[in-house]
């Protein structure tokens, strides 16, 4: 079963210079969005706390990480199977009966 042979993922490869710059740009953009959220707020919050500044930022990152971990955890414990899982469970076809024997068994010849 595949669920028992899961190996922990290897560590992330170090980022190149372009990727480092992109990561910095992402952090700056996210900070700007949170700063804007201090001034721009929802018209009608539906749960109360969804009107707080930063709620939807926290919601995004928490749900993304929670979903990723939950789904991957389920895949590694009981959902994930080898790609040939269903093929291996198919019933094997019965061995073909030799034509001559089958012909003879019915006891009638050609004409």
């Amino acid at each position, binding site marked *: 079963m595949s669920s028992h042979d899961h190996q922990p993922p290897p560590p992330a490869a170090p980022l190149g210079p372009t990727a480092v710059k992109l990561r910095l740009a992402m952090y700056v953009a996210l900070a700007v969005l949170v700063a804007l959220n201090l001034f721009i707020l929802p018209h*009608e919050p539906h749960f109360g706390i969804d009107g707080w500044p930063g709620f939807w930022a926290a919601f995004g990152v928490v749900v993304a990480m929670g979903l990723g971990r939950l789904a991957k955890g389920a895949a590694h414990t009981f959902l994930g199977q080898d790609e040939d899982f269903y093929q291996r469970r198919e019933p094997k076809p019965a061995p073909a009966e030799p034509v001559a024997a089958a012909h003879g068994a019915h006891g009638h010849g050609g004409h």
Partner: protein
Amino acid sequence: MSDFLHPSLFFLACAGLVWLLPGRLGRWLPPLAGALAILAVLSMRHGDYAHFRYLGLDLGAGRVDALAVVFAHVFAIQALIGFIYALHVEDKWQHMAACLYIAGAFGCLFANDFVVLFIGWELMSVSSTFLVWLRRCPASTGAGIRYFLFHTLGGLCVLAGLLLRHQALGTWAFTAIDPASAQYFDYLIMVGFCVNAAVIPLHAWLPDAYPEATVTGAVFMSAFTTKTAVYVLARGFAGFEILGIMGTLMTLYGVFYATIENNARRILAYHIVSQVGYMVAGIGIGTAMTINGACAHAYAHILYKGLLFMGAGALLFSAGTAKLNELGGLFKRMPWVFYLYMVAAVSISGFPLFSGFVSKTMTITGAAESHHAWLALGMEIAAVGTFLSVGIKLPFFAWFGGPDKGLELKPVPWNMYLGMGLGAFLCFWIGIQPGFLYHLLPNPVEYVPYTPWHVLQALLLLGFTGLGFYILRVRMTPEAKINLDFDYFYRLVGRGFLAICRVPVAALDDWWTEFYARAGLKGMLGAAAVTAWFDKAAIDGVVDGTALGVRRVGQGATLAQTGRLQDYLAAAVVVGLAIFALVWFWG
């Protein structure tokens, strides 16, 4: 031009012509049928058309109203885009199957009664099965058979429901059903519709079959089957609370599986379940805004989901695989497929300036404003999962995610780029001109998508989803696995049936063979000897030609017994259509 020209006619005629012409010529006709269908939809006026009397029933195939037109509009556009994308395909059977499939979808859209609806419904079921089988590999054959059996089951639910409904109410009319007075036969019809809408747990045929369909067939199937089901649910079952709950569960279930799947087309298939969930939820909540949201989302979804399948199909066509663990690092060699795919990815994720933003937020806001805040919250969670899996994970691991693995790539034909380009343009156009879509919707639109808060909320949600992926990117690496779903249980039922055939039925067969060999065969040989004597003595010379004729018929019948279910199904459809034509002509 007439006030109503049924678009199905173009596709039915096209299927016939494609059959007659060689594949190289015939493939140019379907885009023409798509263009004519667009003209027909643009020129039709609201009203009831195409009434006819058949087998003693008064039927109608031309109900044109706002709800039908919004779907017909996008069906025609996507038919044209899909056939342009498929222009390089020389297998005429694929074009014929797609034409018949789309004809069936339009038949359902304009059906005024359950009888016409059912004919279109079944035409879609049979022809779309061929879009799976025509990939011509063992995996697609198996998936196609499962797909067909499941849709047959759904079709039987619809058939039983409509017959019982007629028995009880004396009408075939397909009109809105009041949730307060719905009867068991109405729920039977709803279950049949829910099969095609991929409502969980009736959904597993979709991620099973779509990844195994032909490259171009999956593009068509992503547009028509589930959205026709959304249309009939909106027409008949708006306001059924159970649909609101099941729809929200679908949005979550689909993204959960999309997060862990490895095959790009299966990720997209699970995302259909999720996205159709928004529509089913909007219909179930049943307010004017959520019904509008469901229709708007269906319109936007058909375009961006078609584009996503076109992008993943281009990967499969070019690299020979759609498995993310086998892809990676393709950006430098397939940049335009990536850019076009990303237009659809940001559209489905609901980024401002793209189509999903103006449609998805309408359903969520409608749910929240109608005091279904928990359903709205579920849909927001699904929005995060959508961007995580389709917007980031899939493109990251297909086009980036490490060095180029050196796969040999087949050039992507120009027509595939053109189809994707048209889809991308419309995703962007609807995003910046939402009025283009909103003026088609069945109810007056009061929703304003571009407010500072809506834009900021979308950017916050999606931006921080990106941060979550960045933190988890190693853990999210795709693996060469499949994930168990409800089809595990379908297959158990299938294996159980086979076991019944293998043990008791096989024993009965063995007994009968033995009995036949001992008793029946001897009796027949004796009778044969008598008739042989009679034949020689009396008949020879009179009807010698009969024997020759019988032998020829026998040879023909032998050739027809190929043992392949798809051949028998095609023959059944041809015979059915012939009987239909004869009854029509003389009836």
